[in-house]
């Protein structure tokens, strides 16, 4: 854990977030406009850094993990502590880099929501990265898989959704859209924050349906459960795989 925190990349990431957040907030005269611009930075950068850094970190500590496996430790606890270490340090980096400025400029429900989503996204992408890293021994392949996953979640998925929307434009797709949005944690995070920002009025009928669903108490619980599932399921499968892996 201290090792990860001292890592230059994590430090640089924290500083980068700090600089962007302060500049975005001071450029815009309206704080919620600043928040909106900053949202896009978060939704792109946080998953990217989390997934790439974690994958590379897991590969670089391969020999050390081997040494730990030769110690009287359960494999499960080695893997889970690696996950906790990565997740907590990246969350901390996010909190210092983005959370503190948000709290300074925007101490309200939207701000808290954004910090929460950012931290959840950090953890989710650490979990996904570890699942990608456990699948293959080849470092280049592993990092490639991680980049593809990030590309899928932040760009390709939206394209696919748009494609679906146009193909089935004649059908009422609003309700299935809610289910589809659960398939991508980044989208889910974006929707949750946008709804708090009250710009959903601009999203037309679909926006109204979203507001109807995600704005409610049950919708909120649903989306947070889905986000937690996005952490739990990859962690579960990667632990199972790691338990049976030949090192």
């Amino acid at each position: 854990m201290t090792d990860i925190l001292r890592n230059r990349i994590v430090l640089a990431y924290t500083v980068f977030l700090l600089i962007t957040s302060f500049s975005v907030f001071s450029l815009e005269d309206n704080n919620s406009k600043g928040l909106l611009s900053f949202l896009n930075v978060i939704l792109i950068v946080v998953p990217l850094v989390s997934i790439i850094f974690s994958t590379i970190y897991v590969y670089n500590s391969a020999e050390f993990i081997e040494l730990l496996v030769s110690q009287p430790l359960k494999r499960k606890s080695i893997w889970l502590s690696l996950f906790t270490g990565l997740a907590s340090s990246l969350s901390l980096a996010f909190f210092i880099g983005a959370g503190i400025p948000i709290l300074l400029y925007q101490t309200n429900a939207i701000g808290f929501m954004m910090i929460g989503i950012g931290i959840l996204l950090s953890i989710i992408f650490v979990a996904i990265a570890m699942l990608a890293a456990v699948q293959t021994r080849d470092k280049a392949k592993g990092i490639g898989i991680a980049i593809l996953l990030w590309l899928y979640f932040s760009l390709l998925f939206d394209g696919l959704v748009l494609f679906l929307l146009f193909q089935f434009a004649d059908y009422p797709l609003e309700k299935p859209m809610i289910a589809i949005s659960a398939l991508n944690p980044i989208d889910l995070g974006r929707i949750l924050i946008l709804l708090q920002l009250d710009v959903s009025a601009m999203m037309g009928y679909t926006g109204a349906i979203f507001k109807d669903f995600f704005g409610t108490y049950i919708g909120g619980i649903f989306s947070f459960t889905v986000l937690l599932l996005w952490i739990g399921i990859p962690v579960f499968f990667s632990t199972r795989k790691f338990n049976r892996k030949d090192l």
Partner: protein
Amino acid sequence: MIIASNVSKQFGKLKALDNVSVTCRKGECIALIGPNGSGKTTLIKSILGMVVPDSGFITFNEKNILHDWKYREQIGYMPQIGRYPDNMTIGHVLDMMKDIRSKTLSIDEDLIKAFGLNDLMHKRMRTLSGGTTQKVSAALAFLFNPSVLILDEPTAGLDPVASEIFKEKIISEKQKGKLVLITSHVLSDLDDLITQVIYMQDGQLRFHKTIEELRNDTGEEKLSKAIANVMIKN
């Protein structure tokens, strides 16, 4: 102490271990010898539970090691290539290992002193040379007074002084009745250490003999010559 029965392991098309059976007892110092890729490291990793055999089983003190992890308290392992988290100091790594094995009461810091690691405690692992990292690995393997020592290419990368210190340490541990398993290609290093030789080739165990038997069979006094003799015959 360690009994492997008919252990086989396949990586893709490669048969890394082919029906290997070995028995290791207390007080023995066994050299695992064989050409590159003959399955020595795979055998060691199977004993440590890092590789799960496709068939056959391994017991440690009459207990099957499958799904067990506690038995590793009694093993000190020194890997071929030691790599540690870059930003940790030697002191941190040692403390962390002590933390993991908090149950072990007797701590053996002889090697730390002998290698002069005490003066380097605050150095980060990233800045260490290959030899110093190797010294840390060696010190870690001996730190908890384990009853079995497994050393994978221990003397590669150590300077002559360190290598001498290390050999003396192995001899003194052997005399305390511990089981020592060494793989090495530097056969001259092994001459005065070992009591038995296991020779592996293509994943198969070719022979397991005491050093005296080997000397008698080949008529050579030096281990390196005796092994060369065997290799040519094969």
